[in-house]
């Protein structure tokens, strides 16, 4: 009974009958569509045409619609093509599709030069919005911080500690490992190239200055932006998607105070700690390589290190850490709260959070370099 669908043309007197047989369902949709397209070419012929569906074994929306489509194409002027032999089972389905409007409304947006220019314009104008958004968030966080200073009990201590564990304690192994390896690589490269000038020992100077002033904090900040900034954005974003943030607001809580401030605080506390640990790990790694690969024994290394670096180098590095943490946190929270209803939007904002976070960290590092150079540190 369930055979392949067919559409046979049978002449009946001066009329042409299109006899549909077999299974007219979704599984056969491609075949059906071709057959119907063929039959549609009969429109405009001299004969009157009707569609006989009495032999159809099975019909679903696809089949019913294609028969309806055929009927519409064969309808000429006021003379409607008829459907004959419709069983009672399927008449309601055919009635249903008969109500469907033929042409779907689809706005196809084509790419034009003006459209592209408009896009560029909007992106540039959006940059200003980004900066304004960051400043806005900075203000909101500072205001919330001020309120917490006045009423210290309103600080979400549990939440802060929880986030501190997430961004600081749990980050220690990976941060220490990576900075250790970077320290090793810097020392190895330094020794390899300095050896040609017989200046092996200066690798200690380079390592100390580089790690304490720049690499230590910068590397850790970039890792934290990737690790914790993205997590903040995803957390806040999915909370936004599920209206949790709206719920907080209606209960009279300030989302900045409840959600953003503890995260910011945790990050600002965590980054100096991680930067310090990272710097120590890098120095340790560098020292190890200098000893095993460069033949600088630990005693000489430490002696040289004490001469080469002053406390200033350390301060320059560590002072940058909380500022970078604040930048990462603000970017992450702004992006998180900007998430719209879709999963795609969450992905885009998480990406933007990491990219912008790293970008601003590097910009801040440049600004700090100019600042410290001009005050002579």
């Amino acid at each position, binding site marked *: 009974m369930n055979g392949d669908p067919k559409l046979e043309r049978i002449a009946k007197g001066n009329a042409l009958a299109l006899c549909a047989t077999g299974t007219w369902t*979704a599984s056969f949709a491609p075949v059906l569509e071709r057959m119907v397209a063929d039959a549609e070419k009969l429109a405009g012929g001299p004969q009157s045409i009707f569609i006989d569906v009495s032999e159809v074994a099975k019909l*679903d929306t696809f089949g019913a619609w294609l028969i309806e489509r055929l009927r519409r194409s064969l309808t000429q002027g006021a003379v409607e093509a008829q459907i004959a032999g419709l069983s009672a089972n399927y008449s309601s389905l055919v009635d249903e599709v008969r109500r*469907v409007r033929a042409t779907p409304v689809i706005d196809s947006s084509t790419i034009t030069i003006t459209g592209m220019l408009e896009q560029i314009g909007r992106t540039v104008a959006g940059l200003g919005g980004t900066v304004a958004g960051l400043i806005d968030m900075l203000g909101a966080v500072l205001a919330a911080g001020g309120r917490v200073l006045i009423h210290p009990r309103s600080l979400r201590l549990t939440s802060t500690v929880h986030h501190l564990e997430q961004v600081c304690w749990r980050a220690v192994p990976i941060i220490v490992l990576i900075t250790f390896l970077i320290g090793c690589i810097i020392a190895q490269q330094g020794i390899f190239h300095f050896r040609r000038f017989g200046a092996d020992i200066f690798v200690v100077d380079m390592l100390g200055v580089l790690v304490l002033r720049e690499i230590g904090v910068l590397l850790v900040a970039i890792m934290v932006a990737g690790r914790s900034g993205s997590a903040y954005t995803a957390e806040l974003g999915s909370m936004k998607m599920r209206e949790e943030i709206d719920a907080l607001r209606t209960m009279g809580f300030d989302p900045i105070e409840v959600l953003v401030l503890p995260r910011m605080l945790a990050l600002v506390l965590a980054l100096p700690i991680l930067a310090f640990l990272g710097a120590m790990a890098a120095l340790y790694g560098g020292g190890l390589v200098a000893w095993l690969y460069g033949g600088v024994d630990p005693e000489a290394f430490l002696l040289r290190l004490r001469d080469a670096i002053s406390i200033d180098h350390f301060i320059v590095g560590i002072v940058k850490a909380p500022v970078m943490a604040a930048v990462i946190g603000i970017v992450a929270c702004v992006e998180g709260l900007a998430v719209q209803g879709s999963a795609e939007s969450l992905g885009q904002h998480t990406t933007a959070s990491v990219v912008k976070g790293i970008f601003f960290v590097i910009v801040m590092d440049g600004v700090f370099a100019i600042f410290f150079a001009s005050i002579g540190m």
Partner: protein
Amino acid sequence: MAQDIQNAIQDPIIRVRDITVQFGATRVLDGLNLDVKRGEILGFVGPSGAGKSVLTRTIIGLVPKVAGSIEVFGVDLDSSNTSQRRNVERRWGVLFQQGALFSSLTVRQNIQFPMREYLRVSQRLMDEITMAKLAMVGLKPEVAERFPSELSGGMIKRVALARALSLDPDLVFLDEPTSGLDPIGAGDFDDLVRTLQRTLGLTVFMVTHDLDSLYTACDRIAVLGNGKIIAAGSIADMQASQHPWLRQYFHGKRARAVVT
């Protein structure tokens, strides 16, 4: 031939035997048996947390079971190979409680998603069928280009139903389709399910808490309690039942309001 058809009708479309599902130490379903007949609308009720959704998810293969067998369309889902299973999955549609629409696709793309994957048909036909589905679930064509985040709760349910019906399935699972809808919207939804069942010959497995749905839409009702089906039958059977939970459910304050 008439005998064949008779057999086909009698043959259950879903046959669940001795299903046991366990999460950790808690046994949610305990040796549960259930048959769903071809062409019927089965209402599935039970106290909150009794495992109604768990059973639905077990049948559609989202929750692993400890013991028992499930046959859908006569195919044992445990011993079936991938292509058999794919075939079964093509013939059922699922409406999730929250709609579960793909948030980054428009309504039109959501409805066309299964078609695009399973059928090789022209974009034109897909668009036309989408419009037909939207009309069937009572939505305007303009909705097609909207994103799920721009829809109301009731519209999300309707679009989700349209997506579940995208490939003209023989069987649909509805998980609390009328929850969160206003009474008029819920009533419309019940009518819609009834109409679709009639026009498309659907079998409907409906988890619900809505007494109105049970009275107006369902042919048969199954009640879940203590991990088992404690009663199954028509609404009249349910009202006649002496089981304490059923008595409370069908003779409580809210139930009386529906009946009178």
